[in-house]
């Protein structure tokens, strides 16, 4: 089994992938990249008695696209590791190795599972908890709050403030000015899971907007959710190419377009306003047939122009 730990600042994940992947992919620099793609893309976890590779899905990918990889050597794992590995912080790396990352805080080293073969626990995935649908079992309302609050804290850091202490200080300063305007920051309370419906499908889903930092990842997550045809391992090779292409939903090449209803109740095309502005005004999403979207503002419009669309 391969344990892949990704670390990206405060984010890390682990994915446990059965030997089948190794056999299908060539041991080259590309395959670990594909495994990383696998982890970054929403895929579905299914408990199965088969020991084939299962693919993991979440409602939204929880991690930013960029990921650094930190690798520990085999000695960091007390249990059996099939191939010891040299630490290598760059992106090109051998495919079949146990890599691990520690994100700093106190954390027991997750050891590679002993039961590789016949034991009943083989084939069970060890996943980062927040990548599995509905796990950890926290009420959606609480999860939204949590994510919003964490995002606010991260946003402070991302403003280039640097050290945590400094950002906390700044946050405190901002707070301690008794600044009532601080309350408007709580439009973030509006974020979280928004409903997504697709024309022709009876079932709506929900997507966590907080888990995305840009339109691309959101569109890709939605494509995975609604438009995926197959999630078998064979498509992973295909995904590698898909990643470099812009999302079909956004560039107009699909038969569907992604639209959203804003605070005023108008339906707009997704992608025309800056991401942050989008987040504050989106109420829900709809994947609409391109033919029906004719009334909406054309994609390549000047951003300064106020875009008003016809009601759906």
């Amino acid at each position, binding site marked *: 089994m391969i344990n892949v730990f990704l670390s990206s600042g*405060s*984010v*890390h994940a682990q994915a446990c992938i059965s030997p089948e992947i190794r056999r299908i992919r060539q041991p080259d620099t590309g395959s670990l990249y594909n495994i990383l793609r696998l982890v970054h893309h929403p895929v579905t*976890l*299914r*408990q199965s*008695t088969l020991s084939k590779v299962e693919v993991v899905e979440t*409602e939204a990918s*929880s*991690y930013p696209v960029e990921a650094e990889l930190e690798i520990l050597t085999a000695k960091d794992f007390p*249990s059996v590791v099939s191939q010891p590995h040299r630490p290598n912080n760059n992106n090109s790396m051998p495919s079949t190795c146990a890599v691990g990352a520690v*994100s700093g*805080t*106190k*954390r*027991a080293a*997750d050891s590679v599972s*002993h039961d590789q073969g016949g034991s*009943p*626990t083989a084939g*069970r*995935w*060890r*996943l*980062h*908890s*927040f990548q*599995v*649908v*509905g*796990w*950890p*079992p*926290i*009420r*959606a*309302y*609480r*999860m939204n*709050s*949590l994510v919003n*609050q*964490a995002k606010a*804290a991260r946003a402070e850091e991302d403003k280039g403030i640097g050290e945590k202490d400094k950002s906390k200080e700044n946050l*405190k300063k901002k*707070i*301690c*000015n*008794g600044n*009532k305007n*601080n*309350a408007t920051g*709580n439009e973030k*309370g509006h974020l979280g899971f928004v*409903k997504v419906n697709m024309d022709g*499908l*009876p*079932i*709506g889903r*929900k997507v966590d907007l907080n888990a995305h930092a840009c339109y691309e990842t959101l569109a890709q997550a939605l494509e995975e959710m609604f438009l995926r045809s197959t999630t078998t391992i064979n498509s992973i090779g295909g995904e590698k190419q898909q990643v470099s292409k812009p999302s079909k939903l956004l560039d107009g090449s699909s038969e569907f377009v992604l639209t959203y209803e804003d605070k005023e109740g108008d339906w707009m095309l997704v992608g025309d306003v800056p991401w942050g502005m989008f987040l504050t005004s989106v109420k829900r999403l709809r994947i609409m047939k391109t033919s029906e979207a004719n009334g909406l503002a054309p994609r390549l419009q000047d951003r300064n122009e106020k875009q008003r669309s016809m009601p759906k």
Partner: protein
Amino acid sequence: MNYFPDEVLEHIFDFVTSQRDRNSVSQVCKPWYKIESSSRQKVFVGNCYAISPERVIERFPGLKSITLKGKPHFADFNLVPHDWGGFVHPWIDAFARNNMGLEELKLKRMVISDDSLELISRSFANFKSLVLVSCEGFSTDGLAAIASNCSFLRELDLQENDVEDHRGHWLSCFPDTCTSLVSLNFACLKGDVNLAALVRLVARSPNLRSLRLNHAVPLDILQKILMRAPHLVDLGVGSYVHDPDSETYNKLVTALRKCKSVKSLSGFLEAAPQCLPAFHLICPNLTSLNLSYAPGIHGTELRKLIRHCRKLQRLWILDCIGDEGLEVVAATCKDLQEIRVFPSDPFVGNAAVTEVGLVALSSGCPKLHSILYFCQQMTNAALITVAKNSPNFTRFRLCILDPTKPDAVTNQPLDEGFGAIVQSCKGLRRLSMSGLLTDQVFLYIGMYAEQLEMISIAFAGDTDKGMQYLLNGCKKLRKLEIRDCPFGNAALLMDVGKYETMRSLWMSSCNVTLGGCKSLAKKMPMLNVEIINETDQMDISADDEQKVEKMFLYRTLAGRRKDAPEFVWTL
């Protein structure tokens, strides 16, 4: 007793308040059934689809208070598609048409529309209490209707609902004549509220004992409110950020000094920890503290706060309290009965507490009987110690963030640890487990957990035997929910009669097939066996061998429900 006139019996039955006891009373004989049914005022319906509103009305014509629960528990975790059901409107409609004197309505995981809220506000002249927990489908317009029309409203309690906020002035809709409020909780509302109206409302509500504010209520308003409501027993602080040197803060301290009755504190949705000392005055009286939405409070400030809370019975906290913080809790809160430790950082996915905190709590708090604990890791040794220290657990829910993680020290499954818990805690009624678990743990549960009523299982077990042990052993089982476990038809069909003794069974991402579900449905006509079909891959004529992604079955007297959406099939 048969020679007593009905009125006497009725009077005696008035002293029997618990629903279970009243159910027992009604089964003694026909006259008792009649009297009990006609005099029952409070009804609890654990599954809104188990019975029709008409039947409830027919049996309990004197009904004044009803509690309804809708969606399956796993809907809380986004496992149930959006439009699955749980609509309350048919109930409201039936009550209204039959002129029921409804006074109290409590809903959990249901869908309630603004129209329903409006209908409630217009149909029931004595309507007093609305409690909505984890509900959706309504907006602040519906709340405005309730505020406007329910002249005797005592309680409006919104807990963790998804409310569409139209930023209207629903608070201003309480007429000046409304002075009856006892409890108001709008902490979950996302939008602004009319602060002046809020202060006026508090000022004219002399009976107000419970008030929970949302984030949009700043500190200076809080201070004004506290000045006007010094008798509050339960306070939910909204936004708690201010400069500790300011006059507003000083006024707050003065106001807090007058609030000698506050026993329950929550909120701090945004908090500047340096302002917390104002609350140290209140802490010694607190029996309930909920800081689970306050990530801003941690570290030394948090521990200082806790050290003042010697009388605490209930604590909801984030895991940033850490094991050290839990040790402070264990040393300080000797009366602690219930604790919930929630994860605080979703992006990292690390919990800051481990088995150390859990053991500390069990050693330090002899009255602890209810726990929900999200943690990084667990060991069998710790669980065995906890079992020894705390044989009194009635609710034990442990969630290791990595769902299949073994014992952190020995790498063994956690079967022995949970086995010790169920063996020692003879009164255990609710259990959730996580971590690496084999069939063995289910053997233990089946053997020892005699009082167990509800159990949640995820990523556990090896074969059908696991589920079979459970179904065979736990005689009092009412709710069983399973996800991502290798249990299949053999387990499902082993004892089909069992499901009529239970409220419901949820199985998702397991190995049960369409054929198995069909077979179960055929044998048990009193069950609704619902399949949730989210992908288009399956249709009703599909291969019976195909695995069912999500199945929810429940006993019912109402037959298949009429409001099931397209993707839900009742077999």
